[in-house]
């Protein structure tokens, strides 16, 4: 049996940088989605926040995953306007608490850290599945991630399953009525539009699958 591949600081930085790329590519799309049911700033805000994160990562040497995630979280709190700053910030701050003092994580530890982060988002926004928020992409992703790891999948395969679940969750927000966030002000008129927060959340999970699968293949 091959030893369990570990999640390392370098692969986490690769993940975040990849996500920053994806946000930049899709900035206009995210903003357009937000223009339909929100205040047309989600793509712009996320791009600004993750460019700031990318710049800091390039200049700071970190050898503790807890410190890494916490730094990302704090940067997002300050740099991303709207609710997505505190929410994505909380995700990484909570991940940082779980990963504190560690240089590597097993796939299960990584999944637990992400789950703690998603739980943080859920509590912070008190959003439930079905409220048409990022939780609708993240909850199915976490469930799929844990399920796949329990079934013995590699981290790459498990993240691919999580990304598929997040995508389905993202698309499922289209027919939903928003009960949280700015979109909820629209009431039934929020129906028929894909939630921008669920979209950026899907991109985050997809980026994780892409960057960690690349790392897994390189280590073979």
């Amino acid at each position, binding site marked *: 049996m091959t030893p369990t591949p570990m999640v390392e600081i370098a692969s986490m930085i690769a993940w975040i940088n990849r996500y920053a790329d994806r946000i930049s590519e899709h900035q206009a799309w995210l903003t357009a989605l937000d223009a339909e049911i929100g205040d047309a700033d989600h793509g712009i805000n996320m791009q*600004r926040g993750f460019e700031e994160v990318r710049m800091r990562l390039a200049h700071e040497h970190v050898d503790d995953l807890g410190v890494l995630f916490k730094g990302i979280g704090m940067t997002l709190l*300050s740099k991303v306007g709207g*609710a997505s700053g*505190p929410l994505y910030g909380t995700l990484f701050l909570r991940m940082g608490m779980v990963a504190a003092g560690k240089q590597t994580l097993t796939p299960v530890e990584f999944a637990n850290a992400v789950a703690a982060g998603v739980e943080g988002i859920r509590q912070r926004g008190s959003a439930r599945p079905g409220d048409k928020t990022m939780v609708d992409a993240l909850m199915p992703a976490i469930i799929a991630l844990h399920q796949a790891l329990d079934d013995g999948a590699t981290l790459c395969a498990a993240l691919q399953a999580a990304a598929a679940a997040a995508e389905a969750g993202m698309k499922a927000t289209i027919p939903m009525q928003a009960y949280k966030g700015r979109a909820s002000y629209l009431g039934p008129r929020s129906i028929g539009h894909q939630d921008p927060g669920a979209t950026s959340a899907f991109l985050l999970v997809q980026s994780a699958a892409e960057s960690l699968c690349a790392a897994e293949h390189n280590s073979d």
Partner: protein
Amino acid sequence: MVSIVLVSHSTELSMAVKALADQQIQGRASIVAVGGSDNPFQPFGTDPVAIAEAIQSVYSDDGVLVLMDLGSAVISGQVALDLLPAETRARVRLSSGPFVEGAMAAAVQASIGMDLEAVAREAAEARRAKDAVLHVRTSEATAPVAAHTAPETPSLHTAGADVIVVNPAGLHFGPAARFIQTAAQFHAEVRVTDLTTGAGPAPASRFNQLIALGIEKDHCIRIEAVGQDADEAVNTLVRQVAHDLGGETTPGVPSPAFPMIEGRGETVLSGLAASPGFAIGQAVILAEQQDLLHTDERLHADTEESGSDPTLELTRFTQAQQQALAQLNDLAAQVSATLGEEQGVIFRAHTLLLQDRDFLAEVRSAISCGQAATAAVRRAVRRWAERFRHMSGSVFQQRAVDVEDIGRRLLHLLQNDTPSPLADLPPDALIVATDLLPSQAATLDRSRVIGLCTAGGGPNAHTAILARSMGIPAVVGVGSALLEAVRPGMIVALDGAHGIVIAGPDAATAHAYAQAQADAQAARATAWASAQRLTRTHDGVRVEVVANLSAAADAALALDAGAEGVGLLRTEFLFQDRLTPPSEEEQTEIYRNVAHTFGTRRLIIRTLDIGGDKPAPYLALPREPNPFLGWRAIRISLAMPELFKTQLRALMRAGVDSNIHIMFPMIGTLDEILRAQALMAAAASELTLAGADFRADLPVGIMIETPAAVTMADRMAALVDFFSIGTNDLTQYTFAADRTNQHVAALNDPLHPAVLRQIDAVLRAAHAHARWVGLCGEMAADPLAIPILLGLGLDEFSMAPASIPAAKQLITQLTMPTARRLAQKALQLHDGASVRALVRETLGDILPI
């Protein structure tokens, strides 16, 4: 003075509101504005880090109120709290009040020196003024129900009544604190006399004078009141004293203290059983701390008695007292949350003593006479403690320890040192001490302290009460032999149920105690772990086991016990023992808090179930000869639509973030359901009008507790989402036997086929309409009833939290085919006794009884 932080998406808006408020109060309170983003292209936003910094820039121990405009500002405010140090966070409140009106109200309150709670309350209710001016319908309900409020009369009423004290601990700290809090709600002077001893009268506004009466269980006391609502005050207080049993249960008969017995090289000591359980570990002897209270005064005579500046010393004392209050409030909140409300009251009582006018006057006058603050506190505390020690009744002698606890806290604060924490404990620490202060006991590290024993103390002392609620085995009152026999690091074994302490146990004893300790831990872990699992029968059928709650404070307890949700949250506690009905805001807040505790789990909240037996002064309900057949529950709600709609609005607002279900009590007719739903729709449109955030489509269910509802269940099922069968009332209505009348109460047997057949009928009707059914009577926890209810197809069992682990364990051992056969046979039997015999005969091997 309370400071205020204003958070807006817009820098300009937050600055403008600050300017408006500053102008109103002329700088008499600190207000800071924060908001906007530093990105010129996206100027609107909020930054949690900036908010946290703003809070710290104006923070003082008096606290900070944060007002936010909307949306992400609220989330950012919450995140900012997370970024603050814990001690700062404890004194910061996020306000649900409207941004502009709330800021103005809060600024005015802060500028006149109101405390944080008062400032926060005013801010939260700041919308009312505008509602009233514009005659918005919602305002009617937030104001007291006018027709039922006692008219304002200038004349002074007097009232009085005698009552026997039932609380086993008399009218001591906890009950006395509750008594004073209740008395303070009325516009009347209340005084108390102990008719049994002739002590008193003492004013109910003076905590120390009240407990100094030395009122014990079974004493007859007279409660007198003078003032405009004297009658209500006396009635409410009499009812409270007559029913206040408190939660401080005494463990079995304490064993008498014996001198030490030498045997087999080990020293066996005997004390008083204070908290049951076995423990064996390393003795950690609490070093005799420098005794702050009994320091030899001559050593300090120079510094303390002369040359002190009274003004400076008074300021120092006031600061220490305020800090101590803040610490105790935090401790009380923390203990309430982790150990229970009843335990938290111990420290709330400490705060009352710290604010007692007589105590403060004694300290202040000593300082004015030239004593240093430390000396004045030491003297006053010693005198108060002595006074308690000389009172008859062991409870009062133990209260002296509480007074000394407060004294030590004050002295530590005055001397700027922190009490030596119990640091560096071994993982199996067994604390040995002369005595342990309640605040020390409450802050013990439960992961390391496995037991405690003290030379002094008693099983009723607060330290013992705390040890029991923390599940730490304890023996107290061992006597001075304890500290002679035990050396630091020595292995000590302890049997908390029998009051036995063994210093230096031999190998056989040590093995036996270690085994008993391990067994108990394993059993607890198993029961707890299995209680946290979702309930399935042995053959895999899922049923829900949920909790009945009578107060918001029970929520955490229920979760610990393994509740999968709440099948019944009674709301009467919100409405009783007060002069005006609770406001929409107050109710929303409480419902939200409970819902928050349960997250996504289902929380069924029952609307008001009040009647002539549970009066509330503002409802002016007539006394009725038979309140169970009278004007109560949904009948009153439908007759008082504003009262009812206020509750419905609060439920729908709290429903936004939660899995709240609404349940109507005592439904008898289809028309009642339709009228209740119509009022729900009206409440929803009022909320829409008010621009509130709410959820109109909360699931709605009804209690099935009248034979009429049973009979019409098939029609009712079409109108609602679920049923919950209230078997306590259904049984008494079925047999027409008042369950509070001892001559007929025995007729009320819920296991009688007369009741079982009705449950069967309800389940069939509901399931035919794809509606689920719960049961929230005592029967749901009865191990003899559970197999039958399961067999009849019940979906949800709702019971007192303490019953949950055992009920879950039983259900997991049952299979559906067995339960169904049993249920069908039971329906054919002729009385309750034969049903019980059948269950025992069939399932005798797995029943716990």
